């Protein structure tokens, strides 16, 4: 067996989720190659070559791949991927955008967001917002898969893979990059933070997220939000934790003013320790919390900040 892992990066650094994908590839077994498609991305290739378990890094360094447009990268992956038994990518917005396009071009199914490898053709994936786990077996010659990062421990350093270049260039004119507006934050990224503090509808407005920020500063935590808080316009959508937002599993997750709808629980219930602060003692969030505090968050948050 041979596995092609599609690296996730911003042309400068390899995103941590790629390490989880390489770990999933290791669990499948076989030779692991990593494709780094981007522009000016040699540094990323060098980083990928140092990950344990990687046999070969293929770099496709071209302006056509700079913004990860699926219209350009999917045909590249198809061209290279025909030689492999598995093609894996992270179940991030980049991976989710690209991978189904690859699968369709290869005329194979895609298996989305696997959390466990049972065998080289059999995988476990959550359905119904994580309320059920389906074990699925693929009959396709090439298995195209996205990997949920929280399902696998990150691959370690210690590799010394060969780096090769691919000169395949595919550029389609039907899709053009216009611009990107990325949130600038000093805080750790949600999906890789070891502590997350999230606010829900109970925060009442966007300004009140300042109370969370002060606690987050003390803990070095990332800040998340429930869909209710995003829908109400308190904060931006890239902070959303849940079924249709980000899936996280930090060491400590503090849910503040979040009732605990199943869609939110789907995004955080694999956290090691869960704390819930809510004034409604009947809130479902308390059913999954290791430590619950029934309190008014506007009193509890300043107290928490002071106590840390």
């Amino acid at each position, binding site marked *: 067996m041979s596995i092609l892992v599609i690296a996730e990066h911003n042309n400068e650094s390899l995103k941590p989720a790629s390490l989880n994908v390489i770990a999933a590839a290791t669990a499948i077994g076989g030779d692991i190659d990593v494709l780094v498609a981007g522009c000016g991305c040699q540094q990323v290739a060098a980083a990928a070559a140092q990950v344990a378990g990687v046999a070969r890094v293929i770099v496709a360094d071209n302006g056509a791949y700079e913004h990860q447009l*699926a*219209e350009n990268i999917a045909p590249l992956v198809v061209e290279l991927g025909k030689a492999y038994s598995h093609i894996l990518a992270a179940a991030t*917005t980049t991976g*989710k*955008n690209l991978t*189904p*396009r690859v*699968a*369709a*071009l290869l*005329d194979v*199914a*895609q*298996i*989305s967001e696997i959390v466990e490898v049972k065998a080289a053709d*059999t995988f476990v994936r959550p*359905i*119904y*917002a994580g*309320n*059920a*786990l*389906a*074990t*699925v*077996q693929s*009959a*396709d010659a090439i298995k195209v898969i996205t990997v949920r990062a929280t399902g696998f421990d990150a691959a370690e350093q210690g590799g010394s893979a060969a780096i090769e270049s691919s000169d395949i260039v595919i550029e389609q004119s*039907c*899709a053009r*990059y*216009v*611009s*990107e*507006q*990325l*949130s600038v934050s000093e805080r750790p990224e949600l999906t890789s933070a070891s*502590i997350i503090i999230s606010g829900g509808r109970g925060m009442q407005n966007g300004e009140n997220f300042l109370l969370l920020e002060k606690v987050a500063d003390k803990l070095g935590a990332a800040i998340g939000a429930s*869909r209710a808080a*995003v*829908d109400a316009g308190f904060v*931006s*959508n*890239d902070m959303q934790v849940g079924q*249709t937002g980000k899936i996280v599993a930090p*060491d*400590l997750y503090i849910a503040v003013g979040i009732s605990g709808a199943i*869609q939110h629980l789907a995004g955080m219930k694999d956290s090691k*320790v869960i*704390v819930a602060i809510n004034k409604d*003692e009947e809130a479902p969030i*308390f*059913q999954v919390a*290791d*430590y*619950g*505090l029934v309190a008014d968050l506007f009193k509890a948050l300043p*107290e928490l900040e002071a*106590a*840390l």
Partner: protein
Amino acid sequence: MKVLVAIKRVVDANVKVRVKSDGTGVDLTNAKMAMNPFCEIGVEAAIRMKEAGAVEEVIAVSIGPKACQEQIRTALALGCDRGILVATDEQVEPLAVAKILKALTEKEDIGLVILGKQSIDTDNNQVGQMLAALCNWPQGTFACKAELSEDQIEVTREIDGGEQTVRLSLPAVITIDLRLNEPRYASLPNIMKAKKKPIDTVTAVELEVDIGSRLKTLSVDAPAQRSAGIIVESVAELVNKLKTEAKVI
């Protein structure tokens, strides 16, 4: 230009599903069914494009059992012009759904296909991208803004670190994220009017699409349940527990 909007009949988002004890699936007996929430936003987006004069006709399509007509009627009541039911009692995988939709885009000469980014039952997030690939069209996935002009559409996409804007030439596929719009409610007169709008029924065989499955579900299990912990009385106790018991801060 004609717009095709795909809608899926799924279990209502507020229903907590239970896994069947024999591990063959989830128990949906008597469960409330509804239009997938992302598809609702897609329908609204299509109707607004028509209201803005950029689109001549909006066709709502659903794939599944006869009961999907209910969701198609809802789409018609909201403002779609006509419906297509691709009738099947089989479980149709995303690749097969994409192939069916491709056949319909050719048959109906579609300029833009709008889909939800994922369905809340199978959580796949695949069909729009697959359809775009099969048609060799550009894709604007996870759209939170979409501006249609004569021969192109500018789509702002939700990405992990923020937003990305791309410009796609038509025909194209877009998939919808939550913030694109707030769907309207159907008014009673429109619900009555929708009863007279046509719904065609076709089959995958008539469309010459193979919907055979590639994946076999071996079992469906309930996830390990997290047990509730303790209720602490004060912030001081909480901090103490996190430091000495859980050792996470």
